[in-house]
């Protein structure tokens, strides 16, 4: 048990201490243009999604040789086939037949010994090699050895599978994740990933509108006043100020305050009794030092925002992830997953069920706002968002975006008049 000492001293502060630590980010309003500009969207695809490491799943989804999953990336104009080879290694390929570029695998996942194209029967092994061509004799100088599937860089970190569409990735996955990856070392991802509940939805909103909504807690007291009225706020911390913030070159982290005096509802109390939930009064410090780094006893969870589109939000006993996949400037495919250890009995299973229902219903409140925001974003009524100290992560995200996209840099070079990026 952690001693109740300097409890959430940062969270009760209203001294705007977080921006003060990162003066290079400034404090002015940030432009809306990146959320509605077609040009900006195209640049994101080219300079972010085709260049950096992207999380596409977890190892548990493809445990055995021959297990595969398919990740469609329509905004990048491709689909990726991720497969575990006979040697146990996870590989990724463009899901494109070498013959006349038919999409090779049409379903979302499964298990097989080989992949046969539905169009003309070209067949590939689990390591991507072309193994069979019907009527091979009728082709001209066919070099089968050179006609395997087009490989895509793939690597695994803490059980999370990442791919990189760049034919020559600029850095390894570990280099890319850098320090934030280190902070999660020792977190029991393997144990907690035994059970996964997942949802998917296609939202009419820019993918960054989604990201922004889940990297600040300012909205909790208002948007979630019915669903989680006192879990992340309290009398001493009415606006859900974070207990800690940390920015990395591309990624970022926020330790979210948890109200230990939270009064559970009757069913929530049952769920407490039979299993574990996010807000708990027996917070233990068995988690690695990088999680809840200040060891604040009033801690609920850490948000870990991995650039560009992956959230790994960790708590004591459970974690959840988000992947935001842009489909168009105003459309996003969103994948939400919550993970729990294997339930040992019916009581723990019930507890998980409660936990996922409340989690889902809170998200239903978020989703409405995301689409409502997007529906008026292009009105031109506003050109900028106004951000407060607790919205530091959003400001940082915009800066990282601009570093990759270079939209305003080029704009200024071209001497165009327009909104000035405060990024």
């Amino acid at each position, binding site marked *: 048990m952690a001693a109740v000492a300097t409890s959430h001293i940062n969270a009760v502060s209203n001294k705007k201490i977080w921006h003060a630590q990162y003066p290079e980010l400034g404090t002015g309003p940030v432009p809306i243009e990146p959320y509605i500009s077609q040009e900006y969207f195209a640049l994101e695809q080219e300079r972010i999604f085709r260049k950096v490491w992207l999380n596409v799943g977890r190892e548990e989804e493809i445990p055995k040789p021959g297990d595969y999953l398919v990740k469609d990336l329509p905004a990048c104009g491709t689909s990726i086939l991720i497969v575990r080879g006979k040697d146990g290694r996870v590989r990724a390929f463009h899901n494109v037949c070498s013959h006349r570029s038919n999409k090779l695998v049409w379903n979302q996942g499964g298990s097989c010994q080989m992949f046969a194209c539905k169009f003309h029967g070209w067949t590939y092994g689990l390591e991507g090699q072309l193994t069979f061509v019907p009527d091979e004799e009728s082709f001209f100088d066919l070099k089968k050895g050179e006609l395997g599937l087009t490989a895509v860089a793939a690597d695994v970190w803490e059980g999370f599978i990442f791919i990189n569409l760049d034919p020559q990735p600029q850095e390894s996955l570990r280099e890319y994740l850098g320090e934030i990856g280190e902070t999660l070392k020792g977190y029991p991802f393997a144990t907690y990933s035994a059970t996964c509940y997942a949802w998917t939805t296609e939202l009419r909103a820019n993918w960054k509108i989604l990201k922004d909504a889940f990297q600040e807690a300012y909205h909790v007291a208002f948007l979630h006043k019915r669903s989680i009225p006192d879990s992340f706020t309290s009398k001493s911390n009415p606006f859900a100020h974070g207990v800690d913030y940390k920015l990395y070159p591309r990624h970022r982290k926020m330790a979210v305050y948890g109200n230990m005096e939270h009064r559970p509802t009757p069913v929530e109390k049952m769920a407490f009794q*039979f299993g574990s939930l996010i807000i708990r009064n027996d917070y233990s410090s068995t988690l690695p030092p990088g999680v809840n780094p200040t060891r604040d006893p009033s801690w609920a969870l850490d948000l870990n925002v991995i650039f560009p589109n992956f959230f790994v939000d960790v708590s004591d006993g459970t974690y959840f992830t988000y992947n935001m996949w842009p489909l168009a400037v105003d459309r996003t495919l969103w994948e939400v997953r919550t993970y729990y250890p294997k339930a040992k009995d*019916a009581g723990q299973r019930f507890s998980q069920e409660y936990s996922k229902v409340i989690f889902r219903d809170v998200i239903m409140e978020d*989703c409405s706002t995301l689409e409502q925001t997007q529906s008026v974003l292009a009105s031109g009524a506003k050109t900028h968002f106004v951000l407060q100290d607790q919205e530091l992560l959003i400001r940082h995200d915009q800066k990282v975006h601009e570093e990759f996209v270079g939209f305003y840099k080029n704009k200024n070079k071209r001497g165009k008049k327009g909104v000035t990026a405060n990024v």
Partner: protein
Amino acid sequence: MSERLLPESFHDLEPFAAAWSLATEKERNRKRLASTMTEVQEFYNAILPRMEAVIAYLNQFPLDAMPADAQRLLYLTFSLAEVSTAVELFKQPSVVDGYDAARFVPIHK
């Protein structure tokens, strides 16, 4: 005579079994949204005080090898989880100002 769906010691919950003992989250959520608050509240009121006994009973079985009637009872507890937010938080079947539940698609059961 209709067939008994739940273990004998929980015959008081039998009237709710056919409607609320549902195997998937999608079905349970649909049932919640298709019900009136009176129906939801009635089910909630019936099962909540029985939960300690229900869980104690179910905990004697391994989760992956439950007798069919116990399995149905377990699904009934999942429906309590499902309706709890309607009763305790939103005071209506759907999430207040919430997103269209049919568009938020569970991949799991």
